[in-house]
């Protein structure tokens, strides 16, 4: 049974100009899927297409219930007068009618979600005053409050501190054990090897499957092109030159 998948998915932000094409994959409950792509390779576009927010979309999308979306932290307004708990509580908006106050149970769920990402003691702190890694964890807590079977995460491990990365990866393990499906856009090829499936994109789909099969040097070359640097014998290790970083 598929928790999230697509068949012949294509589309973009303007009519007649596809940013994504020929994407077909299927992930079951409890699987973590790494979405690897170069800059502009379609990672964020795929997540938007799965959420039904891409202005022009063809093909089919399969989702087991609503998906929770974890955006990159830099898209949020850091000057907003919102605490970490306020942001986590946004996860309860969809289930709260406009004429009702947020339920006490939802407040408890938001506090529990912050505790789960290791930020219970920062609940009252302003979102914009937290570190990048902590902000990312708050956004993950918000997704936890949504209690969705599928989580779509847009580069949750990019630029976060070591403590946050460790906390986030441990949480991924817990969510997988709960039977939730995670689609994680990432630049980190080494990290992708530790997960269940890998979807390689470069506009179109390059490969999809378990890391051992999908992450061949040929696939990586087609995915990253000139950004890719192969290291070691047989290209066992890779480095992706990107924004001046290497992974």
């Amino acid at each position, binding site marked *: 049974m598929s928790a999230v998948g697509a068949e012949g998915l294509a589309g973009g932000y303007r009519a007649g100009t596809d940013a994504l094409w020929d994407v077909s994959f299927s992930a079951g409950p409890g699987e973590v899927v790494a979405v690897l792509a170069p800059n502009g390779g379609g990672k964020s576009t795929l997540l938007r297409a799965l*959420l039904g927010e891409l202005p022009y979309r063809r093909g089919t999308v399969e989702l087991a219930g609503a998906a929770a979306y974890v955006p990159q932290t830099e*898209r*949020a307004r850091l000057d907003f*007068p*919102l605490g970490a708990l306020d942001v986590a509580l*946004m996860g309860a*908006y*969809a289930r709260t009618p406009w004429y009702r106050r947020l339920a006490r149970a939802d407040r408890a769920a938001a506090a529990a979600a912050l505790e789960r990402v290791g930020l219970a003691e920062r609940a009252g702190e*302003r979102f914009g005053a937290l570190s990048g890694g902590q902000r990312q964890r708050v956004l993950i807590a*918000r997704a936890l409050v949504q209690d969705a079977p599928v989580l779509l995460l847009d580069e949750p491990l990019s630029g976060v501190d070591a403590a946050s990365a460790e906390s986030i990866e441990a949480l991924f393990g817990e969510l997988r054990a709960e039977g939730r499906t995670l689609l994680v856009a990432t630049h980190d090829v080494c990290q992708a090897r530790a997960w269940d499936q890998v979807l390689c994109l470069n506009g179109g789909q390059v490969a999809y499957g378990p890391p051992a099969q999908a992450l061949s040097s040929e696939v990586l070359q087609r995915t990253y092109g000139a950004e890719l640097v192969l290291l070691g014998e047989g290209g066992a290790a890779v480095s992706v030159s990107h924004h001046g970083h290497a992974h």
Partner: protein
Amino acid sequence: MRAAALSAVLDAFSAPYMQRALVEVALLAVLAGTLGTWIVLRRLAFFTHSIGTAAFPGLVVAGPWGIAPQLGALGAALGFAAARERLARSGRSDPDVATGLLLVAALALGAVLASDVYPSGAGVDRLLFGTLIGLTPGDLALTAAATAAVLVVDAAGRRSWLATGFDAGSAPALGVRSAAADRFLLLAVAAAVVVALDAVGALLVVVVLVVPAATVRLLANDLRALRLGTAGLALAEGVAAIWLADGLDLGPGPVLGVLGGAVFALVALLRGARG
């Protein structure tokens, strides 16, 4: 000594026109606390100012055409908002540029109408800067009705406005209908501007709907404090402006403008000095 000063202040507010001004200021303070916060957080200050200015030609023609000034103002403001939306959506001009062009056009049209078509004389001052001490019970009733409507719209749209303002890209995934909620926000701002026109005029609506919220925004770190602080500051500035204007025989609107600007500057300076 203190009792005499208090008595002098209370005496100043004993006349019915001063009491009506007080009620209007209290209602506008609620609007400032509710909508002003969103105007500042959602960066709608220029839109708010432009709606006020766009209403000017509507106010000018209302008298000669025999319609309520608020109706003329609302018609002009909605026409302005529709034209701005169309220009911005066409992609041919930046929304702020479209706002600026239409704002100048509205002000010029109003000036021509007031000076050459429907000579208004000193009435133009009243249209541009308001007359807080010349309000009728009907004006107060309209402001009260608009305030009640805005409170309902705020209760309905608050979460959407917050999520969209915080991160518009991820708001739909939270179940928020950003476009519809934002349209209601703009309509609520337009309604608030129209009912504030009598009191502060076409050019000074920002003094009530933007300046207090912008001032408190320099200090407040949470939404509740921002809303309550803005309402409190708008009320205090309004009462002080009425009292000062009455004592100095000046227009309350301009006095409120100077007072609001001075308080903002003072708070900004103190905050800057504190680092």
